[in-house]
């Protein structure tokens, strides 16, 4: 039986965006603390800290979860995917491209969580209805957009991913953790719209 005493620290091993990591944690750390502070993966945002806003959504073994409500020690041996893992080989994920095209990003704080909730949806259901999309992002609050642009972006990304065929993007987790590599043009575009990092 693993035991981590009050105030003690221990090392946990798990995968982030396909790469194996080891991080030192205390019993009180949450997954979001490990990601943002231990691994400097600051794409994941902390909003409410009590599981109501979805800003901190990441995928744990493929399922969207609030990383503010996952004890770090529960992640031992499991797979985590964060927004940093969406872009592949210097190309944004179709969802990220569609979010930019549809102005689905305003202040940007909800965006990483929205993207991860949407990525989980499209992996399970490549051809969602608007109703399916609304349900999939019902755990993610956005106070800027009114959601319509976000839903349109997800619909559009789904269309694009279906056209590109399976495995086109977002299905694998082979990249090591780190900041996404993006083209200069996309970088400027993201930068001009997202001031939340």
């Amino acid at each position, binding site marked *: *039986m*693993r*035991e*981590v*005493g*009050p*105030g*003690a620290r221990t090392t946990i091993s798990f995968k982030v965006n396909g790469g194996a990591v080891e991080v030192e944690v205390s*019993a*009180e*750390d*949450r997954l979001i603390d490990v990601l943002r502070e231990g691994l400097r993966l600051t794409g994941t945002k902390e909003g409410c*800290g*009590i*599981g*109501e806003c*979805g800003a901190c*959504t990441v995928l*744990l073994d493929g*399922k*969207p*979860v*609030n990383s*503010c*409500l*996952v*004890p770090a*020690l*529960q992640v031992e041996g499991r797979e985590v995917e964060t927004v940093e893992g969406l872009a592949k080989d210097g190309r944004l994920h179709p969802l990220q491209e569609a979010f930019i095209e549809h102005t689905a990003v305003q202040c940007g704080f909800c965006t990483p969580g929205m993207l991860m*909730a949407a990525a*989980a949806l499209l992996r399970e259901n490549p051809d969602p209805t608007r109703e399916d999309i609304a*349900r*999939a992002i*019902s*755990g*993610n*609050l956005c106070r800027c957009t009114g959601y319509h642009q976000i839903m349109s972006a997800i619909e559009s990304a789904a269309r694009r991913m279906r056209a590109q065929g399976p495995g086109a993007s977002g299905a694998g987790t082979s990249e090591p953790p780190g900041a996404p590599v993006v083209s200069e043009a996309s970088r400027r575009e993201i930068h001009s719209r997202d001031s939340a990092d």
Partner: protein
Amino acid sequence: MSPRKLGYVVPETLREASEFLREHAEHARVIAGGTDVLVQLRRRPERGRTDGLRWLVDISRIRGLAGVSSASGTIRIGALTTHEEIARNPIIRKGAPLLAEACASVGSPQIRARGTIGGNIMNASPAADTIPALVALSARVRLSDLGGTRDILITDIFEGPYRNLAQPGEILVEVYFDVLPPTCRSAFVKLGRREALAIARLSCAVVIERDGAGRVVRAAIAPGACLPMPARVSSAEEILVGKVPDEATIDAAAREVAEEMVRRTGVRWSTDYKKPALEAIARRAIWRALGVNVE
């Protein structure tokens, strides 16, 4: 999590978990999906749930506590089964559809992917979505401890809001109930402040069985988020039993649910709102359990 210093243990067996829980009694608390415990740890110590807490006992790695099975007319749900798994499970959707509806209405996709039915029961929130459904199903829970297990009716596990009657060392391992026969229909109706991420302000779970002539032979009505303790409202059930329900009968049963709430809780500041709202929720749930969708 919080400024307090907490320890964390990850037992691999029920025995290890029970031993640790016995040893640390009120200083230890079971955690599984964490969707209630981590929220309570972040808030100022309220309702005494986290006072003096020194240890979290993570039972999520104990084998054999997750999953749904059905045998000899009984459905068993392991304590670690998540709301998402229950909402999607074909055995539940066929044999206890009101529980699938209740689980589908919990929190958000993120919460449903993590929150467990065992946690929902043991956290004993008055607004827990699964509890009215389980009460209407006359579910029983199995508690495991070093000496063995004991099975009790779900309504006997609650001591009051956010308090359960498990002894130190006792761990909820499963909840089980009879499969609803094809002559039964059920419904769970919830009123929240909005569609998603809303805790139930009021809810109502209903199971109704009818004979070939359409007469009600059995009714179970369990309102949620409005009684001091989870319970059925037998006085409302009795209004339905033996009758082929018409609008007036259904209205009378729904009114009785609301009146019984007032009798059990007394008149409160919220009664002016809750009484007609519960009556409407109960009416909807009864109609739906008779196969009619009404708004």
